[in-house]
């Protein structure tokens, strides 16, 4: 017994099965036994190629389709196709399986040993490069696998470990140099169990030559099951003395596999846990030196509370998580808590780190600083549950990390919908704490008007339920200024009965822009509440302004839909029109966006009661200036105006319209927008990217602001939540001449 040591990697037990061409059904049966028996890993191999064995990668893809939970790996794939293609194949299976795929490579059988090893090292570099999305193409010089300039991506669903299989010196050296772990197959070496420790010591020595700690390399071992299954004690020694963390039993015998999974494996797990506890074996650092070298200063990465999933700058998934919809980010750490308790633990830990903190639900916010540079992002995407609490009252609990497209899909079978913006990729948490100006706004109000209760993690890590009876003042503030007060982890909404709706997309060539905008506003105000139109104007092309009206009519009766739309269709010459009767899921659709925003958006918001002739004249000048490439008017009246101004922290209950202008040059857009300030009655915080503290006062009128500041004192005295429209910023500046002095 070598006693070389246990690095504390999570123990995994699995099976290695051969994909037999003579009995292809056996693979499916063995996979089912392994999964049902609770094994962690299933390795598939196809033999030496040709003849009796099936192609291992194809067999693995098949097994992926017939399993749900078990981690899958094809043992010892060769690099027979260009490695860039192999990278996409592995990433694809990882995406299809939701992160259940690993990659174990073996050196080509022919060719000089040294040359084949170098070729495999090249292949590993190409594969990893392909998995790392980026704008710059992947270039590899060769000589074995030259890649002149391949487009990168897709990234796999998780950080796919790369194993090198092989016991000779070159393979061991290659594993130590490039791999996440080394794979020893005792069927190939003919070693006894007693030899395993010495084999691992050779890997340790090779790791040291390449400047890597032995504990950084994980170790897979395939045991020949044909010689009789190993005893519990033998397997435990492999783990706690020889440092193997993944033990696979090779067998084609379903009964032997079942015994291994249901008798040996549980006993091994408890014995290893007991030994580790008795010896005080610390859990392994799971990140490789390569990943750790990309860490940012100021974050004590190794102190993240156990069990919370993390993504770091060196991780494969990082590029898909660093940025938001419209804003690039470079956070030092993304935390992915999976429940409220983990959110509380993550927040409490994050507060001990001297770096910025951002909270993110969907990452779609225009104002929302839900990513950062060098800080921590607390990402709520795992809290995406949608659950009907009471069908009679249409009470639904929705996690803050769900997206509105998924919400629409979940509610649609009940004949329900919840007004929620205009895009299915937006997250629930950010929108339902700010307002929620959606396609059913005129009929059903804001999204926040449907919130009946919220579960909130407060700055001190405590969890409270806020509703009309519990923490009522907090409940008031969460609906409009939630980002200042805590992290809402789930909402209880009362949703509406909504069947199929009419959805119109009308495009107009507009010459008299001022007249058109004024008439549009007047028509909206005169229209029944079952119609909610939004208007979008792009930058003029060759002087021609094209406007698009998107409108939802809450009716599935074609005559009613046409009647509601007719006045709008007469506004100007139509250049394009499409009207469909759709479920709400066809309006707010499920998306699979991966955010890759870059730069900083320039977006300004305002709320106005009416589109007056004077405002319309000024807006025409704005549109024709060329400084604004996207100008939008959303309906914000109707049922929204039924709610008293002091009922929620969204106080603009007289406003009939939300206006947004987006451009490329901040100074120019600000200058034009600020000059129209006399028209505004307020702004909608989620649509404004201006960092000046005046915007906070535009979003929250004096009485609202005073109440919010009082709430801050009670619930967030240390101002932990100061990323989005921070109400405390108003305390740190000179009072404006046009505003009364605030005395919180």
């Amino acid at each position, binding site marked *: 017994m070598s006693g070389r040591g246990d690095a504390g990697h999570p123990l995994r037990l699995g099976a290695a099965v051969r994909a037999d*061409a003579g009995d292809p059904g056996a693979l499916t049966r063995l996979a089912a036994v392994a999964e049902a028996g609770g094994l962690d890993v299933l390795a598939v191999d196809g033999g030496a190629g040709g003849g009796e064995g*099936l192609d291992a990668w194809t*067999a*693995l*893809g098949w097994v992926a389709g017939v399993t749900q939970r078990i981690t899958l790996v094809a043992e010892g794939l060769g690099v027979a196709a260009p490695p860039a*293609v192999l990278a996409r194949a592995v990433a*694809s299976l990882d995406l299809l399986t939701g992160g259940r795929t690993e990659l174990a490579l073996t050196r080509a059988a022919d060719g000089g040993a040294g040359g084949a090893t170098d070729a495999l090292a090249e292949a590993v570099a190409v594969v990893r490069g392909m998995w790392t999305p980026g704008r710059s193409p992947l270039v590899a010089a060769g000589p074995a696998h030259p*890649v002149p300039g391949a*487009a990168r991506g897709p990234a796999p669903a998780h950080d796919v470990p790369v194993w090198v299989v092989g016991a000779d010196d070159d393979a061991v050296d290659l594993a130590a140099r490039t791999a996440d772990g080394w794979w020893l197959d005792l069927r190939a070496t003919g070693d006894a169990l007693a030899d395993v420790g010495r084999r691992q010591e050779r890997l340790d020595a090779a790791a040291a030559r390449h400047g890597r700690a032995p504990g950084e390399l994980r170790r897979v071992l395939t045991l020949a099951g044909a010689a009789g299954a190993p005893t519990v004690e033998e397997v435990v020694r492999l783990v706690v003395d020889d440092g193997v963390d993944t033990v696979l039993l090779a067998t084609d015998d379903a009964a032997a596999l079942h015994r291994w999974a249901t008798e040996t494996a549980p006993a091994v797990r408890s014995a290893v846990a007991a030994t580790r506890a008795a010896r005080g074996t610390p859990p392994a650092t799971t990140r490789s030196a390569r990943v750790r070298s990309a860490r940012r200063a100021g974050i004590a990465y190794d102190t993240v509370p156990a069990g919370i999933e993390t993504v770091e700058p060196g991780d494969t998934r990082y590029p898909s998580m660093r940025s938001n919809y419209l804003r690039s980010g470079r956070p030092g750490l993304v935390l992915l808590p999976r429940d409220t308790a983990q959110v509380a633990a993550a927040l409490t830990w994050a507060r001990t780190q001297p770096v910025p903190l951002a909270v993110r639900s969907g990452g779609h916010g225009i104002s929302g600083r839900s990513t950062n540079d060098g800080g921590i992002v607390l990402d709520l995407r795992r809290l995406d549950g949608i659950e009907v609490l009471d069908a009679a009252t249409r009470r639904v609990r929705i996690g803050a990390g769900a997206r509105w497209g998924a919400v629409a899909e979940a509610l649609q079978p009940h004949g329900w919908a919840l007004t929620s913006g205009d895009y299915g990729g937006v997250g629930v948490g950010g929108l339902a704490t700010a307002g929620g100006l959606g396609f059913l706004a005129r009929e059903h109000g804001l999204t926040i008007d449907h919130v009946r209760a919220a579960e909130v993690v407060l700055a001190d890590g405590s969890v409270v339920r806020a509703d009309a009876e519990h923490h009522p003042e907090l409940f008031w503030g969460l609906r409009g200024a939630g980002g200042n007060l805590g992290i809402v982890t789930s909402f209880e909404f009362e949703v509406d009965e909504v069947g199929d709706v009419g959805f119109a997309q009308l495009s107009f060539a507009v010459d008299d822009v001022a007249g058109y905008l004024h008439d549009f506003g007047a028509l909206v105000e005169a229209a029944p509440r079952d119609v909610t139109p939004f208007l979008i104007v792009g930058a003029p092309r060759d002087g021609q302004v094209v406007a698009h009206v998107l409108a939802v009519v809450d009716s599935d009766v074609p005559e009613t839909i046409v009647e509601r739309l007719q006045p709008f269709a007469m506004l100007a010459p139509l250049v394009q029109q499409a009207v469909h009767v759709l479920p709400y899921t066809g309006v707010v659709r499920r*998306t699979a966006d991966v955010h890759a925003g870059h730069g900083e958006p320039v977006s300004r918001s305002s709320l106005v009661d009416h589109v007056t002739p004077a405002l319309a004249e000024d807006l025409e000048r704005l549109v024709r200036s060329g400084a604004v490439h996207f100008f939008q008017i959303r309906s914000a009246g109707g049922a929204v105006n039924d709610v008293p101004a002091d009922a929620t922290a969204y106080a603009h209950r007289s406003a009939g319209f939300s206006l947004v202008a987006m451009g490329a040059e901040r100074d120019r857009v600000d200058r034009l927008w600020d000059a129209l300030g006399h028209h505004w009655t307020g702004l909608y915080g989620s649509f404004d990217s201006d960092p000046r503290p005046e915007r906070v006062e535009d979003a929250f009128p004096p009485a609202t602001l005073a109440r919010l500041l009082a709430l801050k004192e009670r619930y967030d005295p240390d101002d932990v939540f100061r990323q989005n429209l921070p109400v405390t910023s108003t305390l740190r500046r000179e009072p404006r001449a046009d505003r009364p002095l605030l005395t919180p």
Partner: protein
Amino acid sequence: MADHGHDLLLGSFITPTNGDPQAPVRLAVASEAAGLDLVTFQDHPYQPAFLDTWTLMSYAAARTERIRLAGNVLNLPLRPPAVLARAAASLDRLSGGRVELGLGAGAFWDAIEAMGGRRLTPGQAVTALSEAIDVIRGVWDDTTRQPLRAGGTYHAVHGAKRGPAPAHPMEIWLGAYKPRMLALTGEKADGWLPSLSYLGSPQDMVDANARIDDAALAAGRRPADVRRLLNVGGTFSDRSSGLLQGPVTQWVEQLGELVLEHGFSAFVLAGDDERALRLFGGEVGPALRELVAAHRGTPGAGA
């Protein structure tokens, strides 16, 4: 041009996008539920927004029970033929004989080369495909234990082990348009799989079919040994506005003409639209089979 009398196949032509990785799988399952015979997948291995087509096919095969699967068409320059032969035979065995092999010579050479593939001229690519077919059929032939020697300039195999063989006589279908590719199709392939939108005029269709027939006869085969498949696009609507733009009855009539006048016996619908697939499998398919059977005088005679 004659109807070759093959049983009719209707299929779907799916874009393997990876934004929602399960979306193409759902379309495959929906194709089966719609009663289609065949689900096919585009293959552009240089496209980062797509799933790897072979991996997706392996997974989708496990998620379906009855429907046949094929690449439409697989990119040979980035998929070495000996590996592809074993992969295809393996999936055919795993799926109970539901896989056919759609192959293309390669088209987007800049992208192929950028991934590490070898750039060939169009002429070289046809030769390479011809060699690849020999390699693939050689790998599949496990009736002899003699090591495989096949190929030549672009795909040389010197003494490879043979097998596994597919579970059923797997068909090789070629995406072909130009004269040399059409000749190769007639000489060596089991099927011709072009897209209607690339075929041009009806006369082009007649000419291409004739080239295949001539090459088949020259190689000592029957024209009917080469099934004619066709990728089509279209929309279902109440009013007719062109080829395969209109009601089901119009689709049946127009596809029937392609069967009876131009010898096509398989239609693969693009568009990734579940509703259209349901109409295609549920309404067009039965009516088209009825119409063709009536003209042939026998219900669904095989080739």
